[in-house]
């Protein structure tokens, strides 16, 4: 019998150290795994008809909340506390909503097949609705999926984009979550009766149908017609209107057709009051409708609905843009050929598979922005990215993008959704507060 001791282990250790480490391949494996991970925890989103929706998901989760004791007391009284607290830390409009008692408590309990669903309450306005609920079961429901969510009024679907479901957490028998509805057409509350339908992926496919009636008065959206244009770096941007509802403010903003640059994103868009207090973009959740390549484009900012500002200024800064015609990549995935790549400094692309590629580029900060999303195939049909992952190191980002290209005809064009190339300068305009017209939309 071989006698083995610490020396054998030492020898093995030395031998192991001789194994070559394929650094790049390990990094690629890690990125693939991360992309898969991100994809698996995405909330389910359903959009109404053809409206494209912009959504941001915060990757870093909030674990601690610092609020004043008085405020903590106010929110502690409200059930459905967990998802609300998360929202408060990220959106000051939601804090105002609670301060102004605009949250409506419902507490409707329904029991079916061992599942207890409690509709805790809502925040509702003409721009949408957030429904807070709790689900309880005698077994672990951390990975239970929500199969379907419908919100109807007079037996018709509310025209909206919705999100539901939750990302798997620790094993738990109680989930507190929210259903988010962003209306693509102003919600009419003249009939305050709604019906909620929620179906889960349990053994019985339990489906709840819960009618509810809103008793609180729904405040009207404040609409400011602006119709002004501004110029940054010789590019014209049109600001059509600002609509402020309790849940969000919506800036309707488009780029001029004659521009030489394709505007991609506006990184800094905010409203300031006379004291310099700021309301910025939505950092987690629905952040807008449309896009600068589409006819309509709306960017959401946090709401100051419950304030009475003397003046409001809209500030636009850090506008991302690429020269028109140089704002896409053309690829033949079938032949594994890159046909066109814009002449961007330090930008590199390599194909990885028939629906996947890696890019690397210089970026001033680690902001996890999705660079590419929409694909137009040779027949003009639209496809989308179905996952991406990032790695950031020393002012440079490496990312892997994968696409859902079932049925796409090669070659395809992949359009930039964002790129850290900025127009020079910023602009601001005063919003004429007198022009407020409560009824128009």
């Amino acid at each position, binding site marked *: 019998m071989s006698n083995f001791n610490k020396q054998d282990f030492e020898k093995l250790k030395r031998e*192991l150290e001789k194994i070559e480490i394929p650094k790049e391949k390990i990094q690629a494996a890690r990125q693939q795994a991360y992309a898969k991970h991100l994809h698996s925890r995405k909330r389910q989103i359903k959009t109404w008809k053809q409206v494209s929706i912009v959504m941001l998901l915060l990757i870093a989760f909030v674990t601690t909340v610092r609020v004043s004791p008085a405020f903590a007391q106010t929110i502690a009284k409200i059930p459905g506390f967990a998802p609300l607290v998360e929202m408060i830390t990220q959106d000051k409009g939601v804090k105002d909503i609670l301060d102004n008692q605009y949250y409506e408590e419902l507490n409707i309990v329904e029991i079916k097949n061992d599942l207890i669903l409690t509709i805790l309450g809502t925040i509702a306005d003409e721009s949408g609705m957030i429904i807070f609920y709790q689900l309880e079961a005698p077994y672990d429901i951390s990975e239970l999926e929500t199969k379907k969510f419908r919100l109807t009024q007079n037996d018709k679907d509310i025209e909206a984009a919705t999100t539901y479901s939750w990302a798997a957490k620790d094993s738990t028998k109680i989930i507190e979550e929210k259903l988010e509805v962003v209306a693509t057409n102003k919600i009419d509350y003249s009939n305050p009766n709604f019906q909620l339908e929620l179906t889960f992926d349990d053994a019985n496919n339990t489906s709840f149908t819960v009618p509810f009636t809103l008793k609180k008065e729904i405040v009207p959206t404040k609409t400011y017609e602006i119709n002004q244009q501004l110029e940054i770096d010789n590019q014209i941007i049109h600001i059509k209107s600002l609509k402020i509802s309790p849940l969000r403010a919506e800036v309707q903003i488009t780029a001029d057709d004659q521009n030489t640059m394709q505007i991609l994103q506006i990184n800094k868009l905010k409203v300031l009051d006379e004291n310099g207090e700021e309301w910025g973009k939505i950092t987690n959740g629905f952040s807008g409708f449309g896009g600068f390549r589409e006819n309509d484009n709306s960017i959401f900012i946090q709401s100051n609905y419950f304030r009475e500002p003397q003046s409001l200024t809209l500030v636009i800064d850090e506008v991302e843009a690429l020269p028109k015609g140089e704002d896409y990549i053309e690829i033949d995935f079938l032949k594994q050929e890159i046909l066109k790549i814009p002449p961007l400094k330090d930008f590199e692309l390599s194909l990885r598979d028939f629906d996947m590629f890696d890019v690397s580029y210089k970026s001033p900060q680690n902001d996890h922005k999705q660079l590419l999303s929409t694909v137009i195939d040779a027949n003009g049909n639209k496809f989308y990215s179905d996952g991406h992952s990032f790695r950031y190191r020393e002012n440079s980002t490496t990312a892997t993008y994968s696409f859902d290209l079932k049925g796409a005809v090669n070659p395809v064009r992949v359009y930039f959704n964002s790129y850290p190339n900025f127009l020079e300068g910023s602009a601001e305009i005063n919003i004429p507060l007198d022009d407020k017209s409560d009824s128009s939309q």
Partner: protein
Amino acid sequence: MQNFEREKKAIDGDKSAFLELLEMYEDTHYRIAFSYFKNEYDALDAIQEFTYRSLKKLHTVKKPEYLSTWLIRVLLNVCHDMQKKKKRLELHESIEIGQHNDCSYLELSEAISKLSPEQQHLIYLKYFQDLKNEEIASEINIPEGTVKSRLHNALRKLRYFFGEGGQS
């Protein structure tokens, strides 16, 4: 005293902190996976699956100081599961692994790979991370006496495999 700042951030949900940690430990992880499968292809597969699984279950780690040993346990479980799957595949389809590496030096590691994941975990902590029985006990939360007896069992089993010269 080690500072577990990054581990703490990772457990609290900071994914880039976690990815940085994985990169820091990638040499050790890859070597464990390689010594298990003895080829790059499977080792990389294991690293990928291990990354995915650890991202998914990261929130279950209770204390930052447990993270590095927890990772090794996850990795060993992944290797173990893959090995089981592969064995089934090889039996059914008699696939021949085309890669022949010079693995003579890996005899001991081959013997190690025949231990249960739990026993392997102990061996890696004891002999590759050079932890004392006392430290292992506090890291995986079992009494020191149990560490000692489990290690003893693992070594006895190793000696047996090693003595038989790999009985496969």
